[in-house]
């Protein structure tokens, strides 16, 4: 997914919380927990960059951790929080 252009689903709202954020999908009425503040920043910023790896790099995230972020984003794609653009 690293080279895919992505964005936050337009029907998803994010609410900051001490652990990261709470995401609510207005279309399917599902609540999803984003369990780390950095993943929240990345998700919010996806649309500003050509693809996922450009976003990660812009946020200064160590390349060794990209796999973990890739997995986290994949699960957010499964729950329709993040979508292709």
């Amino acid at each position, binding site marked *: 997914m690293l080279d895919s252009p992505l964005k936050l689903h337009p029907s998803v*709202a994010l609410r900051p*919380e*001490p652990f990261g954020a*709470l995401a*609510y999908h207005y279309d399917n009425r599902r*609540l999803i*927990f984003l*369990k780390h503040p950095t993943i929240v920043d990345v998700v919010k910023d996806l649309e500003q960059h050509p693809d996922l790896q450009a976003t990660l790099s812009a946020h200064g995230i160590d390349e060794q951790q990209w796999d973990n972020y890739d997995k986290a984003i994949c699960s957010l794609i499964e729950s329709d929080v993040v979508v292709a653009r």
Partner: protein
Amino acid sequence: MTALTERMKDGLDAPICITWELTYSCNLSCVHCLSSSGRRDPKELTTEEAFRVVDELREMQVFYVNIGGGEPMIRRDFFDIVEYATSSGVGVKFSTNGTYIDAATAQRLAAMDYLDIQISLDGADAATNDAIRGEGSYDTAMTAMRHLKDAGFGEFKISVVITRHNIAQLDEFKAIADEFGAQLRITRLRPSGRAVDTWEELHPTLDQQRTLHQWLLGHGENVLTGDSFFHLNALGESLPGLNLCGAGRVVCLIDPIGDVYACPFVIHDEFLAGNVRNDGGFAAVWRTSNCFTELRGPQSAGACASCGSWDACQGGCMAAKFFTGLPLDGPDPECVGGDGEYALASAGAIPRPSGDHSKPIAVQLGRRSNA
């Protein structure tokens, strides 16, 4: 216990799930009503005050609210409040007995966005349901569901409170839900409201709880539970959902007069955190009330500390303990390890819920028959 669940115990900046009872007025008198509803409270929030509550929820980014009562559709401004909420980005799920959903209303509801409906049904047949909810209430609910289906509302919810008498009907409830293209939601009976007097004869037996646990595991996330059966996790495999009491941490109740309680099942002064009419409104109650701050603090396992199942069940439901006269730091009255029954034998006095809005019992002054 995950790190996330640990965080939730400290409370969130805003609730995830708010129950908002719009009125204590109700055309039914269910024997297990959690809010002892029947008569309207004259101090009910006005339409304007209700709008201000919605404004606050929007500002706090509360994504949706569970509206109930009483029967919320009795309020003349019911649609005004619901439409104000959904157009503010605060989704609405409302619980109703279905009395006021005719064909035209079903069409109106079906045309609305961000709206979900929960029809209450406590028996898969009229006899079982009506014994709890009153004569004719089964037919009323089924008629409302038919209207919703015909109007193309989509997937609404059928909400069942599990009792000793309907627990054998789980598969039948599921079949009814499937027939209407609805989703089944089953929740736990708490000894709250009028159920303070009926819980003892209605709550499921230990054997029935074991059956329920297995049934829930078999149906996974297709059947909703409001995470209300986490005390069953002590039986072994954990059910999906948050394994904790969310009272004052992630959930709360706003009652018809604006009083804020820790959860819908503890309408009692002990758990009253404040009122939305006071300075600072709902946000101040959620963020700074002593009651909620205390609930977010470390909780003692008390008599359960030496039990190997504590991590699995977290001592169960606070409301269930409170309204059966049990200490809050001890076993749930329906503890699946059997400790609850033991504790109940020496329970203290049972507290009475704060308000009783039940309708006076109608005395039949019939003419004496000469026959």
